């Protein structure tokens, strides 16, 4: 057996592509956004619990405070974020259910649907707030 001394090869090996090297495909964005909106909606559930408690306590028992906070710019921003999260998670969730049934795995279809989900969720959230701010909401009063 010939003597072939082992040479250090670590530097010569190709480096596995890492997050900073990948061009982020849109399906990767929808995946991470589905998770982030899910976390956002968990925070939204806390706001909903607060609202329900405020309603049960009545106007003097906290409902007024909730409304004051909700009407501040930060409150509106948070409510818009929760609204968009719900819209996004709704559309993206429907796609997840379709995937579970075996539909929509084609690369082109999947990329098209990803763009569609972003567009639909943003448009829905803007439409909801547009209806609210132009006085077309509040129809249950």
């Amino acid at each position, binding site marked *: 057996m010939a003597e072939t001394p082992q040479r250090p090869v670590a530097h010569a090996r190709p480096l596995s592509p890492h997050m900073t090297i990948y061009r982020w495909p849109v399906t990767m964005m929808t995946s991470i956004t589905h998770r982030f909106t899910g976390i956002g909606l968990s925070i939204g559930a806390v706001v909903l619990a607060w609202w329900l408690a405020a309603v*049960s306590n009545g106007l003097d028992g906290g409902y007024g405070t909730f409304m004051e906070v909700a009407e501040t710019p930060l409150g509106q921003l948070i409510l818009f974020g929760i609204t968009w999260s*719900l819209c996004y998670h709704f559309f993206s969730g429907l796609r997840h259910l379709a995937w579970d049934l075996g539909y929509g795995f084609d690369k082109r279809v999947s990329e098209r649907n990803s763009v569609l989900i972003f567009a639909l969720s943003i448009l829905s959230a803007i439409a909801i707030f547009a209806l609210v701010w132009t006085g077309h909401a509040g129809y249950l009063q």
Partner: protein
Amino acid sequence: MKSAETPLHRVQGMGSSHTGTKHFWRERVTALALAPLSLWFLYVMMGMVGASVVTPAQYFQNAFNGALMAAFVSFSLYHAGLGLQVVIDDYVHTSGTKIFSLLVIRGALLACWIVSIFSIMRIAIS
């Protein structure tokens, strides 16, 4: 190498995770229930924008509306628990931190559920 698995363990087919598709399946079932409930929730919330406290109080005194809200809150928080568990499973790898995080998250979601359901029932009987 000869497997050290017992015959029973092998036919159960669960491997080292000890559980099967229960988590996955419950996530889908709650998602399916939440799809129509979310649309109803949006419809109700938009309808109450700018209303005084009387509107939601009267609305949820109706048993049907109160029950739908209780269903939405319950399915949402259960679904949230399943989803957040996956995030913990993915990113927390030490069992002590994992158990602690899951306890904190589930405790918070349970607290949320108790406050919500108690409030809905309080509105209903007021």
